[in-house]
C-alpha cells in the first residue's frame, strides 16, 4: 500500500470497480476500500441486465451468466399474461462472480483493493475533501487522496459527510425482499413480472430464472406501502400461493433508490457514483448498468483532473452524467409516477387490450402504446424519451 493515492474509491460494487478501472487505466494510483470481507457477496440483486449494456464494457462470459433472456411475461392482477418476444437478449447474471470479475479488471489495470476496510469519515481541509478515515482490523486509519469516489451503495453516507443532500424520500425507496429458490418450473429464458396491489403495490414482483429450475423471486414496495405491510410479508404470501414447494437457497433484503439522480454528485475533492448518487433507472429499478456507466464517467474524469492538476475539473462530472443518462432518468421517473398510480383495473384492461394485438405484433413498443391509451398524459413524457 502507498502512503497516499491519487484516487480512493469507496465500495467495490459495479460502480466502484468501474470507476477504479477507468481511473487506473489512465495511469493514476487507485485504491478501493470495501467494508465487506468479500467482493460481490452478499448478492442483493435480481441480477437482470441488458446484453447491450454489458457489451459496452466487457465481453459476455458464461462463467458469470446464469441464463439468457429473450422473453418478458407480464402478469396483470387478474392473471392475464402478456408475453413479449425480443430480438435483443438480456442476461441473468451470477453477480457473485460478475462483481468479482469487475474488481479483477480494475486490479489488472493497476488498482489496489482492500476488503474489510470500513470508511468511517472524511478528511476535509478548507471545505475540500482530501482523504478518508477508515477502520481496518480494529485499527483507526487515515489515507489522503486527490479525489475520493463514493460508490458506497444505497447505504451511502459519504456524500452527506461532504455536505450533499443524499437521503432518499422514503416514498421513492423501493424496499425489497428476494429469495433464490429451487424447484421453480418456469421457462428458463423468460423474465416474469407481476403487477397489482395484492402482489406488490407501487412496485412489481419479479421471477428471474437462473437455470436448473432455480430463480430469483423478489419484489419491491414503496415506503408508503411499507408503513402498512412489509416487503417480506408480501413475498411470503406470494411464495405460499404460487411456489409452496420451493426450497429457499438464499433470502435477502435490499433497498433500491427509484428517484432522479441527486441534485449534486460532485463537490470539491469528492464524486458520487452508482446507488450512492441515486443513478438507478427509476422506472425499472435496474442499477447495475447505469452504475457501471456512472462509475466509468467518474473514474475517467477523476483521472483527468489528477493528470491535468486541475482539481475542480471533477465538477464537470454532473453535466457529463446528466447528458449521458441523468436527464433520461428524470423522464423515466415521471413515467414511473404515472404507472405506480395505476389501479388493478387499469393493469387488467391494458393486458386485455394488448392480448387483442396479434401475436407477431406484440412488442414492448406496442405494449407501451396500449398503456398510453389508458393514460394519455404519459404520452408527453414518453415522447421526450424518444426525442432525446
Amino acid at each position: 500500500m502507498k502512503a497516499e493515492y491519487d484516487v480512493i474509491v469507496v465500495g467495490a460494487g459495479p460502480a466502484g470497480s468501474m470507476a477504479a478501472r477507468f481511473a487506473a487505466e489512465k495511469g493514476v494510483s487507485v485504491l478501493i476500500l470495501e467494508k465487506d470481507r468479500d467482493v460481490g457477496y452478499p448478492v442483493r440483486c435480481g441480477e437482470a441486465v441488458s446484453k447491450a449494456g454489458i457489451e459496452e464494457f466487457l465481453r459476455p462470459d458464461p462463467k458469470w451468466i446464469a441464463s439468457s433472456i429473450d422473453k418478458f411475461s407480464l402478469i396483470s392482477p387478474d392473471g392475464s399474461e402478456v408475453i413479449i418476444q425480443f430480438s435483443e437478449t438480456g442476461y441473468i447474471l451470477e453477480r457473485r462472480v460478475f462483481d468479482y470479475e469487475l474488481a479483477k479488471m480494475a486490479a489488472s489495470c493497476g488498482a489496489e483493493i482492500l476488503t474489510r476496510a470500513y470508511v468511517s469519515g472524511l478528511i476535509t481541509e478548507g471545505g475540500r475533501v482530501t482523504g478518508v478515515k477508515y477502520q481496518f482490523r480494529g485499527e483507526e486509519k487515515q489515507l489522503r487522496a486527490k479525489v475520493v469516489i463514493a460508490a458506497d451503495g444505497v447505504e451511502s453516507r459519504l456524500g452527506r459527510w461532504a455536505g450533499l443532500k443524499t437521503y432518499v424520500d422514503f416514498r421513492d425507496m423501493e424496499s425489497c425482499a428476494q429469495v433464490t429458490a429451487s424447484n421453480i418450473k418456469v421457462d428458463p429464458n423468460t423474465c416474469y413480472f407481476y403487477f397489482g396491489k395484492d402482489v406488490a403495490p407501487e412496485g412489481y414482483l419479479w421471477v428471474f430464472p437462473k437455470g436448473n429450475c432455480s430463480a430469483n423471486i423478489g419484489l419491491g414496495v414503496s415506503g408508503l406501502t411499507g408503513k402498512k405491510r412489509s416487503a417480506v410479508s408480501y413475498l411470503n404470501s406470494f411464495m405460499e400461493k404460487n411456489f409452496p414447494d420451493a426450497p429457499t437457497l438464499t433470502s435477502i433484503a435490499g433497498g433500491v433508490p427509484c428517484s432522479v439522480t441527486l441534485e449534486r454528485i460532485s463537490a470539491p475533492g469528492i464524486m458520487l457514483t452508482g446507488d450512492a448518487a441515486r443513478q438507478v433507472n427509476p422506472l425499472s429499478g435496474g442499477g447495475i448498468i447505469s452504475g457501471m456507466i456512472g462509475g466509468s464517467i467518474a473514474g475517467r474524469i477523476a483521472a483527468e483532473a489528477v493528470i491535468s492538476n486541475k482539481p475542480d475539473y471533477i465538477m464537470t462530472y454532473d453535466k457529463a452524467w446528466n447528458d449521458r443518462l441523468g436527464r433520461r432518468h428524470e423522464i423515466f421517473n415521471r413515467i414511473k409516477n404515472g404507472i405506480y398510480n395505476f389501479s388493478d383495473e387499469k393493469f387488467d384492461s391494458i393486458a386485455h387490450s394488448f392480448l387483442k394485438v396479434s401475436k407477431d405484433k406484440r412488442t414492448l413498443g406496442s405494449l407501451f402504446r396500449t398503456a398510453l391509451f389508458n393514460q394519455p398524459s404519459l404520452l408527453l413524457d414518453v415522447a421526450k424519451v424518444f426525442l432525446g
Partner: protein
Amino acid sequence: MLMIEILPGKCDFCGCCVGVCPEDAIELKEAEIRIIEELCTNCCKCVWSCPFETLKFNKKETTRLEFES
C-alpha cells in the same frame, strides 16, 4: 430520547434504512447496525422502509440501540 428499537436477529444489514434516514443517524457495518441516539429524531422513516420488519417504533424509550450478528 430514542424510541426506535432494533429487534434482535432480524436485520439483514441491507442498508435500505440508512438510505432513507434524513438525519444520518444509522451506522451500518458488515454485520453490525447501530442507531446514533443523539442524531435520531424518531421520524420512523427507517421503520417504514425496512423490508424485514427489523425496526420498531416504541411509544416509550428504548434501550436496545445496536445489534451484531
